[in-house]
């Protein structure tokens, strides 16, 4: 019998929910670990939890199974990290948040508002030549939202990484 290294599984995106002690430098420790071990961070969201002694950090990583297991284990070794969970997409509610400034003209104004309503996006600000929209949703929804506005002229996009919570 041949004992080979397991074939790498396809590269996928994984979402890690990391509970860390809220100490200075903890984000640097995490980011440093990713960079020196050559793991890819696609997005990262960090904030205090309901208990101010802890932070919750959500990281979207791309890699195969093997890499994700390594990320999990290496992260778990950091002293300030309390828990690491690899969230299965299907069992989690995943949300991203986007702020988008689009070009506005008198002619297309109505159309822009109509499209925002379809997505149930909020209009935060309107200027004579631009407007700022806000949307929360999963990555696919936000992607198609942005795509829809592209022909009208997108001036600026601010997008958070994914936040996720187990159902």
């Amino acid at each position, binding site marked *: 019998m041949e*004992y*080979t*290294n*397991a074939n790498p599984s396809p590269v996928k995106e994984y979402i890690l929910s990391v509970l860390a002690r809220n100490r200075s430098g903890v984000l640097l420790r995490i980011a440093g670990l990713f960079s020196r071990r050559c793991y890819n961070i696609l997005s990262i969201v960090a904030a205090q939890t309901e208990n101010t002694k802890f932070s919750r950090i959500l990281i979207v990583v791309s890699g195969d199974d093997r890499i994700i297991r*390594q990320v999990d*284990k290496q992260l*778990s070794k950091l*002293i300030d990290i309390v828990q690491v969970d690899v969230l299965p997409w299907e069992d989690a509610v995943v949300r991203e948040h986007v702020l988008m400034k689009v070009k506005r003209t008198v002619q297309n104004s109505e159309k822009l508002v109509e499209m925002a309503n379809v997505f149930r996006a909020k209009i935060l600000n309107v200027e004579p030549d631009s407007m700022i929209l806000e949307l929360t949703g999963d990555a696919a929804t936000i992607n198609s939202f942005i795509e829809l506005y592209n022909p009208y002229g997108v001036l600026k996009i601010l997008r958070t990484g994914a936040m996720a919570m187990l159902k």
Partner: protein
Amino acid sequence: MQLTGAQIIMECLLEQGVDTVFGYPGGAVLNIYDALYEYKDKIRHIRTAHEQGAAHAADGYARASGKTGVCIATSGPGATNLVTGIATAYMDSVPMVAITGNVNLNLLGLDSFQEVDITGITMPITKHNYIVKDVHDLADILREAFQIAQSGRKGPVLVDIPKDITAHTCEYVPAEPKPLFEEPFPIEERFEQALQLLNASEKPFVYCGGGVISSGAADALNTFVDKLDAPVSCSLMCQGGFDQENPRYMGMLGMHGTNTAALAIKNCDLFVAVGTRFSDRVLCNAGLFARHCPIIQIDIDTAEFNKNIDVQLKMKGDAKEILEKLNSLLEKREHKEWMDSIAAWKKEYPLQQKGEKEDDVLPQEVLETLSRLTENSAVITTDVGQHQMWAAQFYTFRSPRQFLSSGGLGTMGYGLGAAIGAQIACPEKRVINVAGDGSFHMNCTELATAAAYNVPMIELVLNNSVLGMVRQWQKLFYGWRFSQTDLDPNTDFCKLAEAFGVKALRIAKKEDIEPVLKEALNEKGPVLIDCLISRDINVLPMVPAGASVEDPILEM
């Protein structure tokens, strides 16, 4: 009682049973050094010539004694000079606490004189690090630092302390050292699976790494391989973790392993790895390593499973405890045929060295003579290069903590500082640093420390006036183009040693070997031996890059 931060540091060191520290004074640690003056009856401070030497000495002290090594440096350049030493300890999982001074709190972040962000710099090379911003946190941080350094897979922890914190006062309440973190133990099912594999094996191979030494598993290992009736190979980090006079011992495995170990891995039907991380220097080509048989890996660090190679059975926990439990479950096995073939290979492929001329001083003879004269009981430290491999190959190590070498980081210049630390940890033992002339050049300043404290260690420089290991690679893969590896005209090491106040001896010909070594071993203070060897002796066997560990080059 109200104490200053500096006094609290002293009290916390005493809580941990620390009686020796290595370091170098400077502006940001003036208060700490003032406290060291006050506590000099309880804590001995060894001042090295350079902070890197202090870090290596603390490391050598830790490896030789099993205790946590402590080093102290000032802010800025003092702290950065520790970095190579900390990284060395990190790669080899050596428990160490490094204390650095920093500028006053209100000067942090302002590019102040001798300010450096040492916690940022050392993040990738410590298990954890701290900067203390309130004297009230100081004692607990120091206690945690020792707890982290010693728990699980051991390693260095750095505590950075701004100068004013060492002057601030607060109430000091003594405390016992914190208990080590609890480590998980494999579930019963894993032991059942292990027993199945062990009982099914007719040709088992037991391979050990540094974890055997750091967990104190040598005795349990001995029982285990007797019960299993298996041959044993050790990594560089496990030299002495298994008695090398035991007929089961096959020598090292990996890039400069023995042909016996290579043949055994080719033919075994089960590979049991204890306390080891499958470094690339052992695996050589991971895709061609023991692919025909299952692997059991015992290790305390779960991140080492399936990192460099996939294994079939993972047992996470302390090597000693796991081996002891396996010993209690395992029935005595017998593999006479297998052990006979191991013995035959050992006979057929002994490690041996040939010179170009008959009267060449051969490192093999130097080290074998040293081994005999010290009754195989000296503590040998090394630098990095050919001499390091020769020391591992030709000195006969019989017990743990006898061979101290920078395996993971491969730090040239490690050995002299480490030897000073080891000699201070073990005053009753003979300590010899086997160095090459290239490595010795890097940190030869530490001869000043050996002389100042009259540390009776021997610095044995195998001097070939070339960077021998790099030269060997240049011969093999770069068409004999010796780019920057020729060190002639070389330093006169005997004169250098004498300038430091260190006795110097020279081995220039074969007949000198035994009398000079004897003379050095009779000295009560530091001695340097300049041992002149040919520049074209190669380290063999050798597995070239990309090749399988099963096919070493035996001659070149």
